[in-house]
């Protein structure tokens, strides 16, 4: 047993993907406008419609025609073939993946020479069709047994899984409820300066503490939004990217490590807080890029729930193990803080695009296009994701 463990992965950081590819175009649908229309009972689009809105905008942003695209990766909620049909793309390489895997696969395909210009396209009509993320038929239950296995005991929702994680984390680390509140408060600080964000009203830690629990210890403000929308990126081979645009955003490196053992009973979350996998994924991407936490100007964290943020701060080396609470309180992750985290507002406050919108926020910050919320002179942005213990570390740079 234990043939492949995080230590092993750290010592064998062998991916060859350093600066193999760059983002040359990004686009998204009208999250704010479509939110209002959905709240009004309309269905502005289906998942494919949102995906195509975003793809059209990404092509325009890249200033290329569709004919230059020779690879297509469809997000998880749209069938690859139908999305290819609707976007009119017959690629020489294709696939279907979630956000972080899509970026990884694009880099891999480009590095291996299977494609040069890949469109990554995501659309989701989860709000208008009432997608269920809890209950015995919860979305994702086919892929993650933990999402459905505990339903006889009333534990079915994604929130409940992360509530168990937070409770255990609080106990193990001495992490407090008010420290948890710092994340939602900080992200509202960012989203208040983001015209693309759905929730823009600033809140305080007092507001957080006074808000209702949904699944205790998680408050309402710890939960992501559920909204409709789409996101697209165009990723090109590095050399070609430089010829295509003045402002390519390079993918410096990608690292990954997964914890699957004990996953259905949630052991990677409530025992380990994903830490060994985060550390291994981080080590791979740091070693390959020659960069580390001190070089990062911004951290973007997959935040279906706010608790992902303290786990990431410890796991990816932004503070010591057990220091996330102090870091959130004293260093700060909001506007004016030492480490800007989720500068668009994240899933909690900007838009719940299942990690896709975080990628375009990385790109826009590095291009300097973020207006009021722009982090001055941002040179490196780190994206981390640890969904169900599948831990990724992606570093974007100029």
């Amino acid at each position, binding site marked *: *047993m234990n043939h492949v463990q995080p230590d092993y992965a750290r010592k064998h950081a062998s991916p060859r993907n350093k600066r193999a590819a760059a983002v040359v175009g990004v686009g998204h649908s009208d999250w704010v406008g479509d939110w209002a229309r959905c709240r009004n009972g309309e269905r502005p689009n289906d998942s494919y419609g949102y995906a195509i809105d975003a793809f059209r905008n990404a092509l325009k942003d890249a200033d290329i025609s569709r004919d230059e695209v020779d690879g297509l990766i469809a997000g998880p909620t749209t069938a690859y073939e139908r999305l290819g049909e609707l976007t009119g793309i017959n690629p020489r390489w294709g696939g279907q993946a979630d956000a972080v895997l899509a970026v990884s696969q694009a880099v891999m395909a480009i590095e291996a020479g299977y494609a040069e210009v890949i469109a990554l396209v995501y659309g989701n009509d989860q709000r208008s069709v009432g997608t269920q993320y*809890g*209950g*015995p038929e919860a979305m994702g239950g086919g892929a993650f*047994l933990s999402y*459905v*296995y*505990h*339903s*006889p*005991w*009333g*534990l*079915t*929702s994604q929130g*409940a899984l992360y*509530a*168990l*994680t937070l*409770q*255990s984390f609080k*106990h193990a680390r001495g992490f407090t409820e008010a420290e948890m509140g710092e994340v939602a408060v900080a992200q509202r600080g960012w989203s208040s300066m983001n015209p693309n964000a759905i929730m823009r009203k600033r809140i305080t830690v007092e507001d957080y503490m006074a808000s*209702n*629990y*949904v*699944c*205790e*210890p998680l408050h309402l403000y710890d939960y992501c939004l559920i909204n409709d929308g789409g996101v697209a990126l165009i990723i090109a081979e590095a050399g070609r990217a430089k010829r295509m645009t003045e402002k390519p955003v390079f993918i410096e490196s990608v690292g990954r490590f997964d914890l699957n*053992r*004990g996953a*259905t*009973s*949630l*052991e990677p979350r*409530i*025992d380990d807080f994903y830490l060994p996998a985060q550390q291994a994924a981080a080590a791979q991407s740091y070693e390959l890029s020659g960069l580390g936490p001190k070089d990062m100007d911004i951290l973007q964290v997959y935040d279906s729930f706010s608790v992902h943020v303290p786990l990431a701060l410890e796991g990816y080396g932004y503070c010591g193990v057990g220091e996330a609470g102090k870091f959130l309180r004293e260093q700060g992750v909001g506007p004016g803080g030492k480490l800007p985290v989720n500068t668009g507002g994240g899933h909690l406050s900007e838009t719940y695009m299942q990690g896709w919108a975080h990628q375009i926020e990385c790109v826009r910050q590095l291009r300097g296009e973020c207006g009021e919320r722009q982090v001055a002179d941002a040179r490196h942005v780190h994206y981390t994701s640890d969904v169900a213990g599948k831990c990724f570390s992606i570093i974007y740079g100029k």
Partner: protein
Amino acid sequence: MNAIEAKTPKPVMGLYDKPMWESINAGAMRLQRCRACSKWQYPPGPACPQCLSCDLEWTPVSGRARILSWVVFHRQYLPAYPAPYNSIAVRLEEGPTMITNLEGAMPDAGSIGKDVRLVYVTMPDGVVLPRFSLAE
């Protein structure tokens, strides 16, 4: 829908889950234990994740466990579970982690690390669930 009619959410019932639920209905929960390496597993499966042996034996558990984490639902999601209700994670003495409910009390700030004992609770619709109550 009232609590009498409320259906307990059905368990996942794969090929290897059935013997476990039969043992729960009989009031003596058994889990698979590997004859080759002695490792216990939950949820049930086709082989031992530690040594990949298929030589598994359904073995009664002691019923002793310790609380690892807990939550309280403040909203109702399921007809069988009016709010507030709790779920807890426990580590069985045999090793596996199990998601269940704390019976007889709501968990609180001091719950993590407390010893609990397996009890069998019959739900209003007749389904028997393995739950845990605080040990003396």
